[in-house]
């Protein structure tokens, strides 16, 4: 086998099988496939992938399927496609090599979109899905976007979302990952923020056998970015959240709160990179990662990665790994609440503040219902 064939396996066949697209798209695809052919899938020798072994994805010959969203008109957005997501990431390259149905969303300058815009990426059946989303929010515009990932069976969802927000734009992004229990979910979201823009990400990770999120945000002057995350894993599930907040200009603010609940033999990774460039004086950045580990066999690796090149900044970070508090458990039991109900109640309570940050009532309710189902069945 040639070196290339070894790296790309059946992907070459899949690549040649897909019908040609219009010029610009086809160019993007070919350049991306070439990049992917050079690197192949990452291994645990790559620092970025040390704790997440994607061999189960790499060794399987996947049939590429049409993404779950219907084909849309690019409405002049094509020129911005594939400009932001890091092409050095092999999964981004692979996604780009199979660009077909792109979910384009354009909120024009000053437009205020009241209702949440929902994008559902549904993987129906086995195979590989390359969901692709491009969201362009004009200056001063406001919108709320909910991306949901779901499906049935064993499939590989390899998603890329790019968001560009203009000056003073306000964007609330929700991602609800509730893939099937056998699914592989790899997703990259890259966010380019304008001056004084305000961006919030809520990243809820519940499903999939293996889930990896790479979330990157680049801030401009006076930009505010909030990254909230909740991951809940059980059994042999694995979830890996890599976030990167890049303060490129002065007076930026970022708040990050990621919370994880681990049970069974589940494993989780949190890697939070904060970059404060030389120019980015007066940056204010706070990162927190809290983990609740319910079993002896679950494992969490959490690591902040601060790269600070400016001197007049405030950056704080902290990570905790803990069990349920014995005193709280006893307090609940001393009021008659059974031990397992008390455990459920405290576990639910741990996730409550992330649920409280969700501003869409129906989504908050459904997340609470999911949490109750997961943790709460015996409480009353």
């Amino acid at each position, binding site marked *: 086998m040639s070196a290339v064939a070894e790296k790309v396996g059946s992907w070459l066949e899949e690549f040649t099988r897909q019908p040609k697209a219009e010029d610009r798209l086809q160019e993007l695809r070919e350049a991306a496939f070439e990049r992917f052919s050079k690197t192949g899938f990452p291994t645990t020798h790559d620092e970025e992938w040390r704790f997440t072994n994607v061999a189960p994805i790499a060794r399987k010959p996947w049939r590429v399927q049409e993404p779950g969203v219907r084909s849309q008109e690019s409405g002049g957005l094509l020129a911005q496609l594939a400009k932001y997501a890091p092409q050095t990431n092999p999964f981004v390259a692979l996604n780009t090599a199979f660009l077909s149905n792109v979910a384009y969303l354009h909120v024009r300058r000053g437009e205020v979109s009241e209702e949440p815009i929902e994008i559902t990426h549904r993987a129906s059946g086995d195979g590989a899905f390359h969901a692709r989303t491009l969201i362009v929010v004009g200056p001063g515009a406001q919108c709320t976007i909910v991306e949901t990932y779901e499906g049935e069976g064993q499939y590989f969802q390899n998603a890329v979302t790019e968001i560009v927000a203009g000056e003073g734009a306000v964007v609330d992004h929700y991602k609800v990952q509730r893939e099937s229990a056998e699914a592989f979910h790899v997703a990259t979201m890259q966010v380019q923020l304008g001056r004084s823009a305000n961006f919030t990400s809520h990243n809820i990770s519940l499903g999939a056998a293996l889930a990896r999120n790479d979330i990157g945000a680049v801030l401009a002057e006076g930009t505010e970015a909030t990254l909230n995350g909740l991951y809940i894993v059980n059994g042999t599930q694995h979830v890996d959240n890599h976030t990167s907040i890049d303060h490129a200009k002065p007076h930026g603010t970022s708040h990050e709160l990621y919370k994880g609940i681990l049970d069974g033999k589940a494993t989780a990774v949190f890697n939070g990179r904060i970059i404060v460039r030389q120019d980015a004086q007066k940056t204010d950045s706070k990162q927190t990662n809290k983990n609740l580990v319910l079993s002896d066999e679950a494992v969490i690796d959490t690591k902040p990665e601060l790269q600070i090149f400016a001197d007049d900044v405030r950056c704080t970070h902290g990570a905790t790994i803990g069990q349920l508090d014995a005193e*709280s458990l006893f*307090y609940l039991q*001393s*009021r*008659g*609440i*059974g031990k397992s109900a008390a455990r459920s109640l405290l576990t639910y*309570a*741990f996730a*409550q503040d992330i649920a409280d940050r969700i501003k869409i009532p129906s989504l908050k309710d459904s997340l609470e219902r999911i949490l109750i189902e997961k943790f709460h069945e015996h409480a009353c």
Partner: protein
Amino acid sequence: MALLEIRDLHATVGNREILKGIDLTVKAGEVHAIMGPNGSGKSTLAQVLAGRDLYNVTGGQVLYDGKDLLELDPEERAQQGIFLAFQYPVEIPGVSNLYFLKAALNTIRKSRGEAELDAMDFLNLVREKMSLMDMDQALLNRPVNAGFSGGEKKRNEIFQMAVLEPRLAILDETDSGLDIDALKLVAHGVNTLRSPERSMIVVTHYQRLLNYIVPDFVHVLADGRLVKSGGKELALELEESGYAGLGIYDEEEAVGKA
């Protein structure tokens, strides 16, 4: 028959013995006050009775209603009518007071074969008991004890007791840190619950509380043992001459003298 009978109770934490042989009998309707220096084991006794597994019972017996109490889980004890008002009530962010109390009450009712209260009946009950404790209803929707002032926490304990209506209430320094108005409220809440069927063990450092909750018996706990028992006059005596009058010294003082 006695409601509670403690016989030669020994308990340790780690490998240190804290309770060194406690004997105490509490009959239905009686109020017993337990006083004693810091670190003498009052809270340990209270927590052991409520079933905290941090403490190991290494000897003795506790009969509740004639049955072995020590083999029950904490929730079973609560379901059978034991209530501990904590010296340091625990803050539980993320669980609302209302939800917590409803789960508690309905679990207890269910265990007794009684119907669960629906939301309306529960709310009515809770409102009545809150006004008894002069508590702000806004506290109901706040997380359990989180961000409560010291006094609010103590009142919340008695409020919970009023809702759960235990047969044996153990109050661990519920008066500490209360101003006189709050103290009167707490005492009023407790006195409202006094009845011929209900017994109480009131742990306190101060005679002041016992002016309002008049005990039938007062015991002095020192170094893990009940060293003296008497009527309500004993509390007054202690107020005047301190524990030193009984030849008892605080641990710290004892160390200083050694």
